[in-house]
């Protein structure tokens, strides 16, 4: 018996065996994995693949780091004259 046969809790279609997910396919669905948007069996297959594959683990680490760094990117500052105008609008606003 192969390791994947006893490690799977229930038998699925043959194409859902972890060894059948290639790294090329992992990079297509790994963001859905991060988003928690994968069906349970696919999520388990991704996790099994990640347990065995350093390349995909490093890819996932890079993805997580880039998401974190994206959160630290400074947002566009407003043009000063525009900011002034907006502040003026706020100050001069009276409740209807």
């Amino acid at each position, binding site marked *: 018996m192969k390791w994947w046969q006893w490690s799977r809790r229930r038998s699925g279609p043959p194409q859902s065996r972890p060894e059948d997910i*290639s*790294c*090329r*396919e992992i*990079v*297509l669905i790994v*963001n*859905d994995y991060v*988003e928690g*948007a994968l069906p349970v069996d696919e999520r388990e297959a991704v996790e099994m693949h990640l347990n065995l*594959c*350093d*390349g*995909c683990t*490093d*890819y996932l*680490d*890079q*993805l997580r*780091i*880039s*998401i974190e*760094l*994206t*959160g*630290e*990117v*400074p*947002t*566009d500052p*407003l*043009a000063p004259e*525009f900011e002034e*105008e*907006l502040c003026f*609008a*706020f100050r001069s*606003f009276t409740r*209807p």
Partner: protein
Amino acid sequence: MLRVAMMFVSSRAVAEEVVQEAWLGVLKGLDRFEGRSSLKTWIFRILTNTAKTRGEREGRSVPFSSLGGDAGDDEAPVDADRFFGDGHRWAGHWASSPRNPRDVPEERLLADEARQRIAAAIETLPENQRAVITLRDVDGFDADEACEILGISEVNQRVLLHRARTKVRSALGQYLDEEAAA
């Protein structure tokens, strides 16, 4: 907010007007805010409605009606030659693995330069991808809120986010390769 407004209108100047108009709409409509979504989501929703109306008046078709016109639709997330080709014993597996981020000293990973690379990659994204990644990863909205703000389906949001994050990751990957070689 500017970045989101710019998806719907033709120029930054018009987008600035839209942001201003949206804030006035927020002030006038505050009494009608029912608290069914967060205040932040509600404000952004007013922003996109204002921007869409303005965009339509400008004669611009509203983006997000489809994924069409989205540059890079067929682009693979990773260069095909980083994988073993069909026919190889390890077809579809890494021929050239991504860099382990721990190969690069932490201070280089947290350096301003890394963030600048990320920012530059975001700038080159198509507008709809840029809007989604900005709402999700810069402004911190969750998936449902981003859908509500942009008026797009869950699937559409996920596809756009996947494409955007993939390209930004790729910029980081390149940075890591360069730093590790330095």
